[in-house]
């Protein structure tokens, strides 16, 4: 029984380690307003992407996810809006004081996943 369990665990690790496609990081720079983020207010996130990545991206397939570092807290998700080629914008609501991590996630046209951490910020109470 122990050997079977160990074999299953090794198999799962191998499956996990050999993931199909590594996520693509387009190289975003982010500007947050207000800084620091304030609880109860919307956080305006302006994103600019490296020039080489511009043709690969479709704003409609990208989202901004705001996660707290503490597990179990509700993430905030918003679709990216393209202001100009290579410039995007999204607004999320800051619901609690503490540490927030902002991710851009989605897909490229070829199906490759996009995942990039674009900012970290400590939200404060108003």
């Amino acid at each position, binding site marked *: 029984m122990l050997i079977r369990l160990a074999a299953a665990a090794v198999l*799962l690790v191998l499956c996990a380690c050999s993931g*199909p496609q590594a996520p693509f990081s387009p190289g975003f720079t982010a500007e947050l307003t207000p800084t620091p983020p304030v609880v109860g207010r919307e956080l305006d996130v302006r994103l600019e992407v490296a020039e080489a990545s511009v043709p690969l991206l479709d704003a409609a397939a990208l989202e901004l996810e705001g*996660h707290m*570092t503490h*597990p*179990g*807290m509700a993430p905030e998700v918003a679709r990216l809006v393209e202001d100009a080629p290579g410039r995007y914008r999204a607004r999320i609501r800051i619901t609690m004081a503490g*540490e927030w991590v902002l991710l851009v996630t989605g897909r490229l046209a070829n199906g490759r*996943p996009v995942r990039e951490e674009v900012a970290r910020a400590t939200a404060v109470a108003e």
Partner: protein
Amino acid sequence: MDLLRWPVVGPFLRWRHARTSLQLVLLAAAVVIVLHGLVGPDLASTNLATVLTWVHYRGLLVVALLAAGNLFCLGCPLVRVRDWGRQLHMPRRAWPARLRGKWIGVALFAAVLLTYELFDLWALPAATAWLVLGYFAAAVVVDLTFRGASFCQYVCPVGQFNFVASTVSPLELRMRDANTCRTCRTADCVSGRKAPAGDTALRPRVVQRGCELGLFMPAKVGNLDCTFCLDCVQACPHDNIALASRVPGAELADDRRRSGIGRLVDRVDLAALVVVFSFGALLNAFLMVAPAQALQGWMEHDWGLSRASVLALLFGAGLVVLPFGLLGAAAFSTRALTGDGAPPGLVVRRFVMSLVPLATGVWAAHYGFHLLTGLLVVVPITQNAVLDLTGAPWLGWPFWRWTGLRPGSVFPLQAGLVLLGAFGSVAVVQATAERDYGARMWRAAAPWLMLTTLLAMTALWILFQPMQMRGMGP
């Protein structure tokens, strides 16, 4: 009411493999936690290791304790792995006599609370996975070295938490009929059921183990040290053990001598465990609110202390200095008001158990908050894990909107749990004072009722504060 005689539930619990099946479910969860913690995303709120361990496991554990009993010790996967290990190596040594007691468990319980804060464990999936692996390794090493349930009884900090909280659980294992136990000559509930005579030569083989924690059913009182493992139910040849309902918390004012434990007032280590359990509940919740963050920041900047030093000071104050001062003051007041000549330490040990219901209410309010506000996040995180693993949304794209209740909506439930706990503590104070002081009961109880009120108000004040999720993680 005896759950072992209920339809469906009763036959399941009496089934020989009931415990194993529950253990396998939790073992599967532990495997998922370790694998995702080690190879999954670094961000704690998107990793099953941190979410399942720090949100669901802790929350469900408290819910189970309040709704039924010590179900997570019943289904503990560490014991399953240990039992597999014991098929290869059966330990012969007894746990050292001088280490018997709760001091190691108390120290580890306090250490877990401190390291959780110091290293931001909630924010570290890989560290959480290693912690789980370390826990398994420690349990296996201890229990392959020493016989019985040494790890559960003397070491496991989660087990100590469960033992204390289970004193306010609504169910307990107890004998059905005292006369049956009185006439029993084999005591299988504690020594185990042996193979029929003639099966082996001199030393009969145990075919069903009895209580590994040495709780002899006729002298068992309450849930302390009971892992709900049901070994006694399986071993009793007279079918004389019930999983029965009872008044939660009543055992805290019961000073009879207990099998495997003795009298509660004689156990300084148990009093220390209750102190860490009770004041740790307040401290653990306090460190999540904005004033605690401000206090820590002020101590770091104005006093020039490191974060570790600040936390060491806060834990020293919260788990040692403050309890010593408050419990000492209450004990001296009781002595002064009643003319009781008992040593202050004895007065503390008489009344300290009354803190348990309130403290359990605080733990439930805290962990219940995380559970209810994050109950459904396991769905999108699992979807995301499958997406990461396979590259295809086999379970659909992550439903990040699936979370749980809004934080503000949980407050009435949290306040209710704290108040319910406070009422329970008041009842235990009253019963203890009546037991030990007779006509002077109200004079004896007054300081402890004030202490209960003070701690309950502190807990409510903490709940009223804006939460601030601390720690930046990786």
